[in-house]
């Protein structure tokens, strides 16, 4: 695997995470190639099953890019996602894995810079953790 290039799966809400990713691309910001991007209709659709499957299939980290609180088109999707992430973090810790391998990241649609920065931080964290 080579921890130098950790693998990250990003679940991106169609309303915020995806536009932020595209924005990062349009700005020419560097994103690791080992990033898998999955578009979802809502951050709240990032199911436990999806997240665990990603980890199971070898992802070093899973990031969920959703809307800021109060901005969800479906009212509470982002809050559900965040709660789910917190629950999964607890579980990871219980079985002795680094809970930081799952991250809930609220972003605005036009915040490509923040998107790239969050991914960069995650990569750095994983490298140190290795």
């Amino acid at each position, binding site marked *: 695997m080579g921890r130098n290039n950790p*693998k990250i*799966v990003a679940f991106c809400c*169609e309303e915020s995470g995806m536009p932020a990713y595209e924005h990062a*691309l349009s700005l020419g910001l*560097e*994103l*690791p*190639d080992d*990033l*898998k*991007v*999955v*578009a*979802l*209709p*809502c951050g*709240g*659709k*990032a*199911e*436990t*099953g*999806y997240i665990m*499957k*990603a980890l199971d*299939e*070898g*992802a070093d980290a899973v990031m969920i890019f959703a809307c800021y609180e*109060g*901005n969800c*088109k*479906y*009212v*509470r*999707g982002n809050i*559900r996602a965040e709660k789910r992430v917190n629950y999964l973090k607890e579980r990871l810790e219980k079985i002795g894995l680094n809970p930081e391998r799952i991250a809930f990241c609220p972003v605005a649609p036009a915040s490509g810079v923040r998107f790239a920065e969050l991914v960069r931080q995650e990569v750095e964290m994983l490298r140190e953790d290795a």
Partner: protein
Amino acid sequence: MSNQQAVLRIPEVAPELKEVEVVPEAVVAGDHPTVLAMADSLSTMGISVTLIHPYKEIEEIVAHMRGLMEADEEVSKKYAFLCEKVAANKSIKVMSEATVDDVSGWWGNFSVGILQKGTSVTLKTSGIAVAYKGNPVLPEAFSAEGIKSFSDFLAQFDMRKGALKEATNPAKRVAFVLDVDGRDEKWASVTALRFGAYLKGFGSQVYILCRDFKVSVDDMEREYRLAREAGILIFKYRDYPRIEGKRIIFQDASAVSEKAPLDVVLDDVDAIVIQEKVVPSKGQEEFLGWLKIPQEGGFVGPNNPQFIGRTPKKGVVVAGDTWYPEYPTDGYVTALSAAAELYKWIGRGTYQVDIQRVAEVDPSKCATCLTCYRICPHDSIRIERYGERNVYITKGEKEGATWEAARVKVETCNGCGLCASECPAKAIQLVYYPDLEVLEFLEKT
């Protein structure tokens, strides 16, 4: 790094349209003046409107407006004109002395129970627009200090009126006290900044005392900067300020040490403006409750800041204090956007629903746990009787009904997938984006 990420996009499934008939009619209900704006606007767009209000005469809707409006001639003229217009409009059916007693159903098919002078009537309608008036109350912290009436102080709602009066006889020192009961509310911060700057223009010294200041929303940052530049002093207090006559005493929260708190004393404050608490009216809470529309502190707005006047429920829009306590000028805009939003759903006689972009329940897997029913933000899931597997039979048709299971109403589902992601039995799939696609994509990450 060359930006060659693998990306799974939401599949672009060709829409499968189902034509749904919607009669262009709406019930507009409430005691807030913005009901007039909504009724007028909807009627202009060709929707038959029934206006339900609690007063004897329609004029009273405007007469019961808070003092604030009287201060602003433009606004009160506008509403007075609207009132005449609505009263003269023969195609708007007005029900006076009437209140809404019960609401059920969904977009295109609502049933509204109305109580009018002791008799109940039920109206069938396609869309609903609501605007209730909130009730301003003085914060408890002040009652505790023995201050009972608004007249001693300018309350937030009357601030503009007061501010205009100030223009002819400006107070030398004005203090705004915000964040009563720990509630940090945008509308209060905005008004304090705007009217603070306004008063500053007449040479008043202006202080804003708050617990926290919301600048991270919309164009607040700009207003904040302008106010700062104008020389408004903004303090963050630790405990609620004490008010003794014209003196305000509080502990500055930004002071360096917790142990040596810095007492700040403001003397000779001519006018103190207190943020009122606006309590939603009883009718409003019930109304939203019947429709399962989420409220925050009794208002719909904070949950949907970027969709003005819209609720998560298709075919239901709100304005007035039901949306959020705001000034009648802003309220007017909210009412118009709400009406336009409603038109989108019910204005055209028929509506096309894409039955691909929805969720679907496999009734044979459903454990009737009600998780999806509680979660759905659009109230699109009902527990229904099924005959054989996947064969749905209408309510009341008991024969052959073998089990009950969740069922998605395609007319109102928005395809967000929240139900699918929480269903413990994995009985729900998004038709246009089944789990399998995501899981396959994740393989050998």
